[in-house]
């Protein structure tokens, strides 16, 4: 996906993050959200390998071998962060203390089911912390391309791949649309400025309800 579309997704998700919140950003596209955090809010980032207060990448040559993110890459800590072990890190996630988790997806469906950790017989990297994050976080936001490499919708009536968790997704943000998961199904709330309701509907295999007013982003 073109860089500007990735940035669009990241900016849009950043606007969803409340003040005084703790947020975990998955490896890959979700990480980009860190660059667009609203300056007028206190948002702290949680890194599941064991700290709160994830900061930007260090300057070259200033890497600290003891300070990496959940992808194993050197990072920094902002003033006011704190370290803990893996049991505490996941107690934070699983105990409902994490306000938002932003994760990528292979498939999401009309019930808010998520598949994002394996394609049987093909790609089995493991779930890492994803199953815990999705079950434990107060709000689950999916950051992903609207369609896969073959042009097929990743938003389905029913997931076909092994699930990461059942009925936990709250919001889906793609380069084309913002879609909310509700007990009544998926609701299209916003459409990208260079797209249209028609394009979103045509590229979405799942049934979409229309919000009373559809915004632009």
């Amino acid at each position, binding site marked *: 996906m073109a860089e500007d579309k990735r940035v669009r997704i990241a900016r849009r998700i950043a606007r969803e993050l409340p003040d*005084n919140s*703790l947020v975990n950003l998955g490896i890959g596209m979700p990480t980009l959200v860190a660059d667009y955090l609203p300056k007028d809010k*206190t948002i*702290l980032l*949680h890194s599941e390998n064991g*700290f*709160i*207060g994830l900061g930007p990448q260090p300057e070259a040559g200033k890497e600290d071998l003891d300070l990496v993110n959940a992808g194993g890459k050197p990072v920094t*800590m*902002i*003033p*006011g*962060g*704190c*370290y*803990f072990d893996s*049991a*505490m890190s*996941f*107690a*934070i*996630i*699983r*105990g*409902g*203390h*994490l306000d938002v988790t932003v994760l990528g997806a292979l498939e999401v469906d009309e019930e808010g089911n998520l598949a994002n950790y394996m394609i049987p017989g093909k790609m089995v990297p493991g779930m890492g912390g994803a199953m815990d994050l999705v079950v*434990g976080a107060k709000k689950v936001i999916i950051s992903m391309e609207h369609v896969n490499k073959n042009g097929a919708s990743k938003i389905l009536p029913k997931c076909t791949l092994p699930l990461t968790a059942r009925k936990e997704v709250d919001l889906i943000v793609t380069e084309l649309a913002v879609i909310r998961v509700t007990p009544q199904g998926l609701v299209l709330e916003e459409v990208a400025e260079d797209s249209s309701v028609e394009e979103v509907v045509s590229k979405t295999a799942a049934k979409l309800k229309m919000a009373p007013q559809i915004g632009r982003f």
Partner: protein
Amino acid sequence: MKRICTAKEAVQDVRDGASIMVGGFMCCGGPSGLMDALLEKGVKDLTLICNDAGLPDKGIGKLVVAGRVKHLIASHIGLNPAAGQKMHSGEMKVELVPQGTLAERIRAAGAGLGGVLTPTGLGTEVEKGKRIVEVDGKQFLLETPLRADFAMLSANEADRYGNAYVAKSARNFNPIMAMASDRVIVEAARVVEPGQIDPDRVNIPCVFVTDVVRGGRHG
């Protein structure tokens, strides 16, 4: 940024009948200023969850003596004679919990567990009314999570994000109680700016804390 307030302000939302976890072990690491503020506010019918009933003239013990506690969940009440008296008279319900089970039940609530299996208490009064689960041929009691409306804790230092450092044996139940309550009020001897506490020494991560009060045993 978390609310920085006085003890009086911090306890203003505590209603009659509220459940409160109180940090400390025989009052070491207990939030004495918050206990005094509760006493002054006059709330009653409280459920208190604490390692022990404190001492008659200190911390949580004063609330017990003053008859503000309807239900006490603790591991030990021997150093506060009023607790035993009120238990026998029926004025206060006391639920005695083995100290390690108390810690695990609180941690379970904070960590999102539905319960933990422990051999402690098997074949004793503690077993009564609890489910026994067998794993690999061994029996365990199923102990369920313990949560509260409030946690009132003590720390040596806290920053404006809510990170706190509790020194030495004052640490005890403070970190786990922070995990298991809706409102978490930390009474800290020193309130500092974010970054002033060594991040490897923080033993109450900021995420749990909602209010910081200056004061307490060192204040």
